[in-house]
């Protein structure tokens, strides 16, 4: 299971590569596996050329892509994204969404909490609406507002 946060939560004194590799060290992956896997995920999120940069040298969208790479690197069956687009401008937000969509099409479940109406409306994915901690709606191909 990988997690993506609204505020990215990258380690400021580690490079992009190290941030992603960190998630692998935690699960005690072999160095060989790490050396192979990290560049792969970085190219998936389109950051191969920024591997040696630090988070504060990147734009918000790029930082979120690093966080996404970190969430993906251990090949989770599920990714939880807590408002992953909340801190991004609409255009960058769509970059992230397209990336999540692609990850989803490769067989990873993506659970995303959001209040971005237009994203939900145009994605037409399964929507679960929660109100005051209670599930009030579960549509197979829903929009942001019920009845749409």
């Amino acid at each position, binding site marked *: 299971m990988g*997690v993506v*946060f609204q505020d990215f*939560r*990258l*380690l*400021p*004194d580690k490079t992009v590569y190290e941030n992603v590799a*960190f*998630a692998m*060290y*935690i*699960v*005690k992956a*072999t*160095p060989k596996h790490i050396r192979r896997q990290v560049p792969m995920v970085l190219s998936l999120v389109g950051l191969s050329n920024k591997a040696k940069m630090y988070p504060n040298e990147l734009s918000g969208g790029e930082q979120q892509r690093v966080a996404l790479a*970190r969430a993906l690197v251990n090949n989770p069956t599920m990714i939880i994204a807590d408002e992953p687009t909340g801190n991004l401008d609409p255009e960058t937000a769509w970059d992230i969404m397209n990336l999540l969509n692609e990850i989803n099409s490769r067989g990873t479940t993506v659970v995303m909490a959001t209040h971005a109406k237009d994203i939900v409306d145009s994605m037409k994915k399964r929507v679960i609406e929660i109100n005051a901690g209670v599930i009030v709606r579960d549509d197979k191909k829903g929009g942001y507002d019920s009845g749409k």
Partner: protein
Amino acid sequence: MGSNYLIREGIKNVFKNKKATMISLITMICAMFLFGTFFAIGENVNSVLEQVQKSQGIEVFIQNEATDDQISELETKIKALNGVNQTTFKSKQQALDLMKENLKDNQDLFEAYEGENNIFPASFIVTLTDLSLATEIEAKIGAMDNVKKITSNNVTITTLMNIAKGIRIAIGIISVILLIISITIIANTIRLTVHARRKEISIMKYVGATNHFIRWPFIIEGIIIGVLAAGITILIVGAIYDFVIQTIEQSNILQIMGVTLLQFPEIVNLIAIAYVILGIGVGMIGSSISMKKYLEV
């Protein structure tokens, strides 16, 4: 291999957080320097006191009739006593010569006592390893054959012992206080550095790192800084110590007192042990304790 990564991370942290490393290093060096300087002074005071105590002897006068064999037998017996450091034989002739030297202006007085007529008794100067045994040893020697009389300076001995005791207690108390101060300062510095990195710690937790995975690089960082600080402080204390000792030795105070001071190699081991405990021990325990708060996300 997992532990390799943790060690490497610890080493990297030392160089990455240069400011924090420098602050911790300087703080630790100051605390260790304070403690080390006092420790060196204390050890020397102790050593001087011991030397003074050992030089305090009792003089055992021997019966005039005693043969050479009996005298050497007596010496063996005295040496066998518990608490006796050294015995020095002073012959009748030496006793006479000493007296002559003390009364230079009246040499003619002694002419009558030369050779056969020498009335000065031979004696042993007995020095002790432990002054508190003085009374006991005197009683034992007094009971031996061929002993004419024993003289000792009991008043000096008791005063000296009391002073030594007082100084030792004072040194002990100040050492403990300095140790507590050092530990507090070091522990506080660690708390500050951990606090400065609380965000980093919480991120690691969110990504799924276990507590031990987060803690070990910090602990290793603490150990490295501790060892570095210990090494640097030993060099500084050593240099200053040598300089001070040389300066004191150049004056002739020591010869007048009849004592010598410790050379740095004689105390460096003890200081090093104290520093390792202070640096590594406090570093490890301190960082574990201060991290606890931030590990509970």
